[in-house]
């Protein structure tokens, strides 16, 4: 069953008019935060809620905020990652176009919590059509006096998948090529221009007003032990009803794919975009949570007519194109994987391909600089585990 917490205003309010947001408890959470005991209380509430990052990595949000709040320096930044580039993900677009005000309120609370005076929303180039809507929402919030403590600026990306990765995103805001940084230091101590910075996903920040207003205890009642709250999913592929669905964390994959999105004859589901896990239909009751599988909530469904080897080949080609090229394991590894998979799909595979793919997967997972390269082999590894017969048959027929 759908549970609309993050999406509670979507389709209900007018995203172009703050008045309609104010009638739905709009900015009451910010008011509660600002008139509360202190900013530490806000951080304590977010920590107690158990909220984890919704962009894919699942880092505890309150902990991130606390690190930035305690970091030395007068100049600090909040960044909202609206560079939703993961293949099959469009839930942040949906939030931005239907309820930009909840996001702005979340950013305003985050700014107060860590002591930042400046925030950036990094909007992907593909969402340029939302720029005016978001700017208008910021202007209206400012006019009403909700942003006296924080200046929010929208920065546009220019087309680069890797810029959704937080360190590449910061380089891009700094006006550079979006290349991944070595860590540590991590952004809460040394982020944008070397200053303490928190980077949160659109959905993560949209959760904040709900948590502050209704309390950490209310939030913690939803979900599993390590995955509190709800998750907004983007469902596409072989389904009758593609779209955005919000479910309590821990809900079974079957509910989302079959009951809500009306998929039939499912062969496999990829969860988390290009570098996401591939789940065969036999495991359709897998719970959706950080403990099992989740990512940023991209759900791509493949029915029985699909060729897994072809699908993984296309995915690897995408990753090879979008690798930033800074580290060799990712730059070269994704290219070799793409070439091998494409060769297999054409029926030109050889016996040792499987072994090469497995060895390369291990190297990339261990040695790549960022999450892109570390996670890139996942579709290969998973398809080899669950659909190994298809690989072997294809090689035999070659």
């Amino acid at each position, binding site marked *: 069953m759908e549970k609309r917490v993050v999406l509670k205003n979507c389709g209900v309010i007018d995203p172009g008019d703050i008045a309609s947001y104010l009638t739905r408890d709009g900015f009451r959470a910010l008011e509660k935060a600002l008139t509360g005991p202190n900013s530490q209380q806000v951080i304590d509430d977010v920590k107690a809620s158990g909220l984890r990052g919704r962009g894919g990595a699942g880092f505890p949000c309150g902990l991130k905020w606390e690190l930035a709040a305690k970091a030395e320096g007068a100049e600090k930044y909040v960044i909202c990652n609206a560079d939703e580039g993961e293949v099959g993900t469009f839930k942040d677009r949906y939030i931005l176009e239907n309820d930009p005000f909840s996001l702005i309120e979340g950013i305003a609370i985050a700014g107060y919590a860590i002591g930042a005076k400046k925030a950036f929303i990094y909007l992907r180039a593909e969402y340029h059509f939302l720029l005016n809507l978001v700017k208008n929402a910021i202007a209206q919030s400012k006019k009403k006096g909700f942003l006296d403590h924080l200046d929010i600026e929208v920065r546009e990306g220019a087309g680069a998948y890797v810029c959704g990765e937080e360190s590449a995103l910061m380089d891009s805001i700094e*006006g550079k*090529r979006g290349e991944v940084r070595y860590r540590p230091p991590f952004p809460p101590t040394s982020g944008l221009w070397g200053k303490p910075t928190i980077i949160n996903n659109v959905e993560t920040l949209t959760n904040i007003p709900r948590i502050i207003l209704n309390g950490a205890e209310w939030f913690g009642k939803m979900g599993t032990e390590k995955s509190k709250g709800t998750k907004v999913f983007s469902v596409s*592929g072989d389904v009758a009803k593609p779209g955005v669905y919000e479910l309590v964390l821990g809900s079974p994959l079957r509910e989302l794919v079959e009951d809500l999105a009306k998929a039939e004859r499912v062969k496999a589901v990829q969860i988390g975009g290009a570098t996401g896990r591939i789940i065969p239909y036999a495991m359709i009751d897998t719970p959706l949570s950080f403990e099992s599988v989740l990512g940023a909530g991209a759900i791509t469904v493949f029915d029985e007519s699909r060729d897994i080897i072809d699908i993984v080949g296309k995915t690897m080609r995408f990753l090879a194109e979008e690798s930033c090229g800074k580290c060799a394991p990712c730059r070269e590894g994704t290219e070799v994987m793409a070439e091998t998979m494409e060769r297999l799909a054409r029926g030109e595979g050889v016996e040792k391909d499987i072994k090469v793919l497995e060895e390369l997967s291990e190297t990339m997972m261990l040695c790549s600089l960022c999450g892109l390269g570390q996670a890139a082999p996942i579709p290969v590894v998973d398809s080899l585990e669950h659909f190994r017969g298809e690989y072997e048959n294809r090689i035999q027929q070659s």
Partner: protein
Amino acid sequence: MKKAGQNGGKLLVLLEAAQAKSAHISTETITELAESLDLSIGEVYGVASFYSFLHTKPKGRHVIRICKSLPCLLKNAQTIIDSVRQELGIKPGETTADGKFSFELTNCIGACDKAPAMMVNSDVHGNLTPKKIAKILKAYK
């Protein structure tokens, strides 16, 4: 001489503005930006060439980008690619002789719920069928 990161984040914003004005980023623009921001030409070109939405070569007045990521491919994006190709007589990566359209393939544009989808400039068009293509393209003068 400075490094790109020392320009207060202005370089990418200025490159985006330059492109919005004249559809691509010319060699002259790169030289001018390098001088005014005290950066090397290589540094500015490096940023301009990194991003797929920035063009260092002239493009058509309208840029068509068809999504070639999996969710769109599953919904027959290839037939859309074929019909644009047929309609305009050019392949992906090319520009029509009259300079009106450039045709590109792109990665996920976040419109998978309306797959197959494409962008024409900043406009997103979804639930495409080969039949709709001619009509959509006609609207761009």
